[in-house]
């Protein structure tokens, strides 16, 4: 089913998407919000620029954007896949606890904030370019990969992993990563560590037409939390 979004408001567009079954193609998308919110079993392909909260609470559906995304993509995503052939705004993958997000370009601030995992649910967020400040803030699980493709300076902003207490962040760079917060332990990823992300790199390559396997040969920082209980020593029982 093809929907020309043009001047449709968010509510009307989303009503039509909810009623559709199977594959939905949205053309000339102009910032309509909440596309695919809570969707379980659709494939939504978008040409243009979807608005904020694309794929929020996504629960199994696939969303492919040929263009840039805006803020809060994949907010509280449970499962499914979001592929952005462009850049993403702030709050990408907020509190996602399942599924995968691939961004070809860069992401704004607070990507992967509150990301978490439990049992066999393990979310993954792959950013091709650079990520803004507060990447993986309060992260409690899952995996974030920043590839820094075509980026000359540091591929992440300030305060990466602030409050992190689970999961891991891979950052591909030949530069030194400075100024990481005390909660974060960083090291250069070993060959075995990189095998962990190889399937995601291959998938990234398949989505965006580049050699994922070759990416695994490069130098990555691996960031992990120092403790799973950052606040354990904070309190005195009164």
């Amino acid at each position, binding site marked *: 089913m093809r929907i020309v979004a043009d001047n449709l408001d968010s509510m009307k567009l989303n009503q039509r998407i909810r009623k559709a079954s199977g594959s939905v193609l949205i053309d000339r998308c102009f910032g309509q919000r909440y596309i695919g919110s809570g969707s379980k079993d659709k494939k939504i392909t978008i040409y243009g620029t979807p608005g904020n909260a694309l794929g929020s609470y996504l629960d199994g559906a696939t969303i492919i954007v040929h263009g840039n995304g805006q803020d809060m993509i994949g907010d509280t995503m449970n499962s499914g896949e979001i592929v952005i052939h462009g850049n993403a705004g702030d709050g990408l993958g907020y509190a996602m606890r399942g599924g995968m997000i691939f961004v070809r370009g860069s992401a704004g601030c607070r990507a992967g*904030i509150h990301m978490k995992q439990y049992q066999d649910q393990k979310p993954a967020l792959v950013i091709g370019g650079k990520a803004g400040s507060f990447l993986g803030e*309060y992260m409690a699980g899952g995996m974030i990969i920043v590839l820094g493709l075509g980026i000359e300076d540091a591929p992440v902003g300030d305060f990466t992993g602030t409050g992190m207490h689970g999961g891991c962040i891979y950052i591909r760079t030949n530069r030194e990563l400075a100024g990481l917060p005390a909660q974060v332990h960083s090291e250069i990823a070993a060959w075995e560590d990189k095998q962990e992300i190889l399937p995601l790199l291959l998938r990234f390559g398949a989505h965006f037409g580049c050699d994922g396997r070759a990416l695994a040969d490069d130098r990555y920082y691996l960031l992990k939390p120092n403790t799973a209980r950052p606040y354990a020593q904070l309190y005195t029982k009164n």
Partner: protein
Amino acid sequence: MNLIYPEFEVARNTERCTKCGICVKQCPNGVHALKVDPTTGEQKLAADDSRCVDCQRCVVFCPVRALKIVKSGNVYRENAYWAQKTINEIHLQAEHSGVLLSSMGSPEPYPVYFDRILLNASQVTNPPIDPLREPMETRVSLGAKPKTIERDPAGRIVNNLGPQIELSLPVMFSAMSYGSISLNAHESLARAAEELGIMYNAGEGGLHESLYKYGRNTIVQVASGRFGVHPDYLNCGAAIEIKMGQGAKPGIGGHLPGTKIGADISRTRMIPEGTDAISPAPHHDIYSIEDLRQLVFSLKEATDYQKPVIVKIAAVHNAAAIASGIARSGADIIAIDGFRGGTGAAPTRIRDHVGIPIELALASVDQRLREEGIRDSVSLVVGGGIRSSADVVKAVALGADSVYIGTAALVALGCRLCRNCHAGRCAWGIATQDPELVKRLNPNTGYKRLVNLVRGWQHEIQEMMGGMGINAIESLRGNRLMLRGIGLNERELEILGIKHAGE
């Protein structure tokens, strides 16, 4: 060495005590112990007062009433400025450092405005109504009410009422998460809400799969950590509440310690086992009313506009202006939580010094929304200090559509307000995840006690309404002429929008 002398003393009447050892088994803190005197070989019950939190479990369960917990009576030199508690808290921090952590609502002696407000009753004219003889409506429906009547081309009225929640009386159980309280406590609340035709609020810790069947009587919460939030959870509840703040700790988030996160809570909250569950105060996607509107509508989109959305804030200085913004954010209901509200754990200083009384916040919010002509675009729910049906009636007359009760509900389940929830060793099986302790709260008994309490309140509310000559709770809402202040100054009366007694 403990530098602080115990606050309580176990007073054991040895003439009554049969050394049955029930107190030893009941105490989760290891206060009581059966010891053998090495010289005489005689068995003796001993008590370590320093471990006692005055939860009253041993007192209630002692079959011969041989036990009492009393204040230890040890006193520091009298000082009108440096209270014993203040000195002890300094010793605690000097010893352990760290942020002082407390539980339940503030016990500090701030003014209680509910206790300085009196209700009216009819005499001679507009006679009272006898609720035993005449119908007395306590039902309320929460949600945005349409501003205009719409008609179709044929002139028929179009139903333009948005989603609502229906309550048999204006009382709901407030948000308490699975994690902060036990599953048995949650089940008791859920079953009571179903039987009473009201709502309970699952709090921010997700919803255990065994409780989905009570979804029609459940408010599901979404907080900054998004614990346990997924489309089925959102669609299961009767309403969705966005938690922006909590009365006991405005501006502060929650940290459920990793020690409390076992397999069941991990699955329900969708977080890893054994790691701290961190729910910071700010939602990092919300910096404005426009941003809040985005979250409100993303939740509405995820539930196909079938559920009313509640935005809960703590009662703070600018509550009226904030509420005005929330009313324009697309939210259907605003919940305001006063500074007496309970908590499973909050920094002592925040709990006791931040926020304002719910009575003042409610009066100013209701007034502001009326002045701006948007009172009907939202319903108002207040919590944080509702102790009795009289508080409910006063809150409704000050402008609330409904109240939330949390502490009162826990007391009905057995809580004695020992305020040690943060220790996780609740003797009454409420604020604990220890399976042996959780078993002590039987949901079959627990839910009946909650039903008893609320039914009792309902009847009292009807009696008070009848006395005022009011036969529908809707006619009481915002009816401040039914209220008079006692011992309040002019400014307080002005904020509450009521006259002084005798006027």
